[in-house]
Every structure is written in structure tokens, then in C-alpha cells.
């Protein structure tokens, strides 16, 4: 009896200790994450007066404006189209390339360490530094090198409207490799060596081993990146703000960039926020079922480990 009451008292003490320790971060989480996001959702249903000092609740007005702008504004339609194109590149092509690089690095083929460093470098340096260096290279160094070496004069790749899109795609792909490769290689290294050795003994080639053993075993990691990629389709800025500020050509703009620029443009004028909040909420309503669908699909179609 004495022992059980002692254990109870000890558990109670432990519980109180735990509660006190997590109380502050929990409160912080509720204020700065839940509260802020809840306020953003509620904003979508408000209309402010011009001075931003009073509001009234109007469930549909902001959404009506958004749908009207979707019909009338080529900019918005263009932004959505660009977001989908960017998603194709970053999810389909980006993840595929990241897997290929990871398989290469995992098997320690020639130059794999160099690849590792080059591909992971953008993840450890500041994004703005990478953008500036990259811009200097493609707008300054490449034209100059071509002129000196081959006497060919070209416009900078970011300056030239014909090459800017391809250059942005290349940049965004390159900087997206770091974390996925780290996690894929980590997942691949956790595959039992006996399984791999057995497959090699059975005569499996590198491709067969990758397709039938490695990829199925790291499928959960791949799924995670696909799902996260889908979740970010309509918020991906494509690094446009880092390159161009708020003056990017609208032909390049994505939904994420458009939203960001509108928020900056509001300049603290509260009356402008409800419209932007409505756009954001609509993006969430579109993205959420897409994410759930993709998650279901990935689980269903994914290769089984057995």
C-alpha cells in the first residue's frame, strides 16, 4: 500500500513537472499558430470599412470578389496555371531526379561525394545568397564567358524573356534536392544489407535492385515528399520574390507569389486583408482534398514491401 501511494505521488509529481514544462510552449503554439491561423480564416468572412476601424460579417462578399476576379483577371488564371506547371516540375521531375541522385550516391558511384555537396549546398546557405550568386552567374558570368570564349553575345539568362522560365525551373529544381536526397539516402542506408546482398547473389542488376527492392522499401519517404509537394502547390512562390521583388513579369507569377505580393501591397491597410484571406482559404479548400486524395493514392498504389 505504502509503495503504491508512493508510486501514485511520484507519477503525480512527474505529471505536474511535464505539464509545467510544456505549458509555455503550448500557450505560445495556441497564440502564434492556432490563433493567427484562426484569425486569418475569420478575416475571410469580414468586410472592413475604408479606414479599417470597423468591420461587419459578410460570409460571401469576399469570395464573390475572388470568383469574379478569377473570371476577369488573366493574372490570376495565369498564376494558377503556373502553379500547376511548377508543381509538375517540382513534384514529378524533381522527386524523380532526387531519387536518381540518391540511388547514385547511395551506391557510392564515381563522384557521389561531389554530387552530395553540390546538391546539398543550397540547403545550408541562405536562400538570398544563393539567389544573388546564381543571378550573378547566369546574368553576368555566362554571357561574359560565351563572349570571351566563342565571341557570342547573349542576354543574361534571367534578363532574357525567352530563357527566364527555364532558368527559374533549373534553379528551383537544384535547390530542392538537398533535403530529399538527405532523407532518401538515409532511408536507403537503413535497408538491410542482407536483402541487398541476396538480390545481388540472385543476379539482380542495379536497376532491378533499385526498382524491386530499394524504392518499395523507401516508399513511405517518397510518399511524404509527394504529399508535402502537393500541399505546397498553391503557396509555392517559385523564389520569384527573391529574384524580382514585386515586379516579376506576370507571365512567371505563381499563386504563392501573387498572394505574397498582394499582402505586401496591402501595406498594413486592414481593409485589404479579408480579400487576401478569402483567396488563401479557397486555396486551402482546393489543396486539402487534393492532399488527402494523393495520400490515399500513394498508399493504395504504392509497392508493398512483401
Amino acid at each position, binding site marked *: 500500500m505504502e509503495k503504491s501511494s508512493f508510486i501514485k505521488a*511520484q507519477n503525480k509529481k*512527474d505529471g505536474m*513537472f*511535464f505539464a509545467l*514544462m*510544456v505549458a*509555455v*510552449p503550448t500557450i*505560445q*503554439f495556441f497564440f502564434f499558430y492556432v490563433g493567427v491561423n484562426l484569425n486569418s480564416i475569420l478575416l475571410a468572412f469580414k468586410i472592413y470599412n*475604408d*479606414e*479599417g*476601424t470597423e468591420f461587419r460579417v459578410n460570409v460571401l462578399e469576399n469570395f464573390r470578389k475572388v470568383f469574379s476576379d478569377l473570371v*476577369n*483577371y*488573366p*493574372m490570376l488564371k*495565369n498564376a494558377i496555371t503556373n502553379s500547376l506547371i511548377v508543381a509538375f516540375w517540382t513534384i514529378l521531375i524533381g522527386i524523380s531526379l532526387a531519387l536518381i541522385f540518391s540511388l547514385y550516391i547511395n551506391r557510392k558511384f564515381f563522384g557521389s561525394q561531389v554530387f552530395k555537396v553540390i546538391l546539398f549546398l543550397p540547403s545550408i546557405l541562405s536562400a538570398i545568397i544563393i*539567389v*544573388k550568386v546564381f*543571378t*550573378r552567374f547566369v*546574368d*553576368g558570368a555566362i*554571357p561574359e564567358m560565351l563572349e570571351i570564349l566563342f565571341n557570342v553575345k547573349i*542576354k*543574361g539568362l*534571367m*534578363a*532574357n*524573356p525567352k530563357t527566364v522560365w527555364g532558368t527559374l525551373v533549373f534553379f528551383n529544381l537544384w535547390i530542392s534536392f538537398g533535403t530529399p536526397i538527405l532523407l532518401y539516402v538515409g532511408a536507403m542506408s537503413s535497408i538491410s544489407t542482407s536483402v541487398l546482398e541476396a538480390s545481388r547473389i540472385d543476379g539482380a542488376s542495379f536497376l532491378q535492385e533499385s526498382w524491386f527492392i530499394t524504392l518499395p522499401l523507401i516508399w513511405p519517404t517518397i510518399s511524404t515528399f509527394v504529399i508535402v509537394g502537393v500541399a505546397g502547390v498553391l503557396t509555392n512562390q517559385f523564389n520569384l520574390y527573391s*529574384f*524580382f*521583388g*514585386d*515586379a516579376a*513579369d*506576370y*507571365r512567371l507569377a505563381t499563386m504563392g507569389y501573387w498572394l505574397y505580393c498582394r499582402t*505586401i*501591397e*496591402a*501595406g*498594413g*491597410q*486592414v481593409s485589404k486583408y479579408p480579400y487576401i484571406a478569402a483567396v488563401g482559404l479557397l486555396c486551402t479548400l482546393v489543396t486539402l482534398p487534393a492532399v488527402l486524395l494523393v495520400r490515399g493514392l500513394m498508399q493504395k498504389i504504392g509497392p508493398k514491401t512483401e
Partner: protein
Amino acid sequence: MRKTNKKILALVLSAACFINCFGLLGCGRRNQDSTDYTKTQITVGIYEGGYGSEWLREAAAIFEEKYKDVELEDGKKGIQFDIDESKNYGGSNVATSLNVMKRDMYFPNSLSAYHTLAKSGAMLEITDIVNEKLTKYNENTSILDKLNDSHKEWYVIENKVYGLPQYECAYVMSYDVDLFYDNLLFYAEDGINFIKNKDDVKSNGPDGIKGTMDDGLPATYDDFFKLCDRMKNKDITPILWPGALQGYINYFMQTLFADYEGIDGCDLHFSFNGNSDSIVTGFDSSGKPIIAKSTAVTPETGNLVFKQAGLYYALKFMKTIVEHEEYYNYTDCFGADLNHLGGQEKYLYSSLLNKPIGMYIDGSYWYNEAKGAIESIMEDPAYAEIQKNRRISIMPLPKATADKVGEKHTLYDVACNACFIWSGIADFKKDIAKEFMQYLFSNDRLANYTKITLSTVPYKYTISDELLAELPYYGQALYKFHQESANFFPMKRNNIMIATPGLADTSCFFQTMSENAPTNDFKNGVSAEEFFGWISDFYTDDVWKKNYYRE
């Protein structure tokens, strides 16, 4: 042992979350080592960047000395300004976080929410000090008397004032005077040919008056492009602007617009009430705009202002530059690499490195912002002497058409800013804060502001010849330009502008369905006429009445 490990883990995880809270401590006072607690503290928040804080600190030091014996609190003698310089004091931050920041005085970089803040009671009313004649500073005028007429409408709310503009800014074209002389790029007296010798008499320039700062400069757009062609023939790149900041060109086009329309036309553009002599109704077979005389504009038909000829000519000017790729370096002007500092440096070094660039487009504050580049040049013995005597000046803009030559230059002031006193300031500090605010707008302080920041202010003020001689050539030119030009401020206090102050921004000014900056469309082959038409297509009667019109 397991329980101990759990506790340690819980501690570590909680500490990791808790560390975020320290971000909140980032707000508040800085430089606590230099705080003198025997003095009453007046806290000031000023935006870090742009015009800097040197002018404010100098004024604060003089004011502290003047009031070193004042006793505002028990046990304290004198005052000390606690000046916090941070990017947190940007306009939109200040507008939304005033009650969190809790500084006594604010000097944000911009404040389009001036009316909102004033009406919410967040700003202390300063009408008394603004109306008081500044006899204590040997002046016979008040701050309000000195304030540009164009600004009064915005800053005076129902006969009360809550904040004051501390600087003005227009986007201008600067040029290298020495380069122009060395290469004979000034127009001769006949206004058609160029000078053959440096001492030749120059043309009257766009304002048509001899002896002003625009003598010898191109009088019309056609003259300007003729000048560009001449520069090109002499292996001088005519123009540079920072490609990473295409928005600067939009601001510059607003200056072109203002210079065409003049104060009256600009007033109409933002009051939406009056008669316009410059509404474009179409284009003739030669592509020239057909301009209707005396078109009535009312708030209900306010969208007509987006057909003002000044808007068309501004677009036309930039389109002509963009389509002549020989006038600029494409990568510099349309790439993402060259930002404002890079552009300033490139321009300043260009003639020193024998790759001369004739003209540069940037904000009127740019020379102060280029301090770093100028210091680098001065540190180089090969260039120091040249830089010391260097003459970079403002180029008063050419007129769109010959019939406009002779009209006064008009600047478009894009700086919607206001410094103010927080209404939550302690009662015992109110009077001294107001006193300081008043001091900042005495003629001496305004003159010193120009001396330190190389920027002008939207007030009628004078700089003595002695002080003017201390300024670099650019500063002298800027002041002279300020004196010779009209300054237009777009923020008006009608219901339409209060509802949508963004109408003064370039985003609304050049608003089309695509929301694209004009130069982005120009480089893709869109003509000025097309773009001008798109602006009208955006501001249809229905759209105007639904989204912008207010009674």
C-alpha cells in the same frame, strides 16, 4: 534512471520551444549601455535605411543640450533621446503594431495609413505647434505655412494635424555633367545642334528660360532620343536603371506624367473633379493621340483620368527607350542581378573605368544611398581627385511635345510618409515631444536635413550659400531643382483616395488586367498605345463605380 532521462528530454524539448519566446524580447530599447537614467527618456523609432538617422541624432543632440536643465520627472534632470533604428519601423509595421512598439515618437519610412491611424486616436494632435509662428527660431512663418500646398490636403484632417512629412522623393534622371561637357552633349543655343566647344552658349532647355539648371538639356522627347543616338555614336551607353527593381521605372513614369500634366492635371488625376484638357479619345493615322479639350471629370466618372495624355506620353517615352536596345545594357536593365546599390555603383564607376554611362534613373535620394560606392572611389588614389570635383546633376525632364516647352517642371512626390508622436506618450513628456517635433521643422533643421541626407523636403525653406557650398554638386543640384520645380503630392483627402490610397501607387496607376509592370510588357513587344488602352480597359465605368467610386 529512465524517469530522469524522460525529465531531461522534456526539459530540452520545452527549452527548445521556449527559446522562441525570446524573439519577443527583440522589441524595445536598444543601446541600454548608453542610457542615462538620471534624464527623462524620450523613445524614438526610426526606419533603418533610406535617409538614415544621422540628421535626427544631430537634432536630438542639440535639443538635449538646450533642455539639459529641464525637470520633467521627480529626481531627473534633462532629457535623452533613445533612438531605435530598425527596419521594424516600416510603414505597414508601424500601422499595425503601434501599441506593441510603444515608442514616444515615430519616423517610419512611409505611412499611407496616416488617416486611419489619426482617426483611431493613435497619433497625438500637433495642430498647435504646426500653426505657431516659429519666431523662437527667427522665422515669421509656421510649419503649416511652409508645407507645400499640395501636401496640406492630406496632412490636415478637419483643421487638425497629427503628423508631418519628413522628406520628399521623386524618381529622376541624373546625368554626368563632366561627361556631357567632355563629349559636347549639350544642345547649342539654337536648340537643334549640339555645342561645338565647352564654352558655347547652351539652349534654354525644357523650361525655356536662360540661366536655369536645364540649359543645354533636351527640350523635347525627340531631342532626348537624338541625344541618346549621339551618345551611342560616341560609345557612351545612354541610360542605366537597376533591372532588379523595375518598379523604379514605374515611379519614373509618374514623374514623366506629372511633368506633362503639371500641378493642375495631377490634381485632377487624384481629386477626380474638374476639367481636363488632356483626355485622349483615340489615335490618328500617324499614331498621334487625339486630345479632347475641356472634358468634365466628376467622382462618378473619375475613371476618365486614366485617359490623361500625360499617362500616354510617359508610357511612350519608356517604350521608345525599351525598344531601342542600343540605349541601354539589356542584362543590367532587365536582369535580376542589378539592384539599386549595384546600379549606383555601376553608374558612378562607369566613366572612371572608361565605360561611360550617360544617365541614370533612380530615386532623388540615390546619391546619399550611394555613400558606400563614393567612399570606395575616394579611397582609390587613381579616382579620388576626380570624384572630389565630380559633377553629377539632376536632368530636368524633356517635354513630350514642343508646345509644352516653357512650362514649369513638376515633380511627382512618391513619398507618403509622416512622422508623429504616439498618443500614448506619458503626459509629462507631451510638451517636450511637441517642442522637439517643432524644432525639427525649423528652417535651420530642414537645411541641415538636406545637407546630411542630400534630399529635399516638401516645405518652403532656404539653404544659405555657405551651407550650400558644403554640399556635393548633386546635393546643390537637387536643392536647386526643388526650388525651380513644382512639387505634386498625390494623396488627396477625398473619399475615393481615403478608401483606396493605393490609387497613388504605381500598381494602380498602371493597372491593367495582367497586373504587369509596363516595361515587362514593352520588352515583349506591347506598344505604348496598346498598354494605354489596357489601362482604360481595366478602369471601365462599371469597375470604377463598383470598386472605387465613393460619394
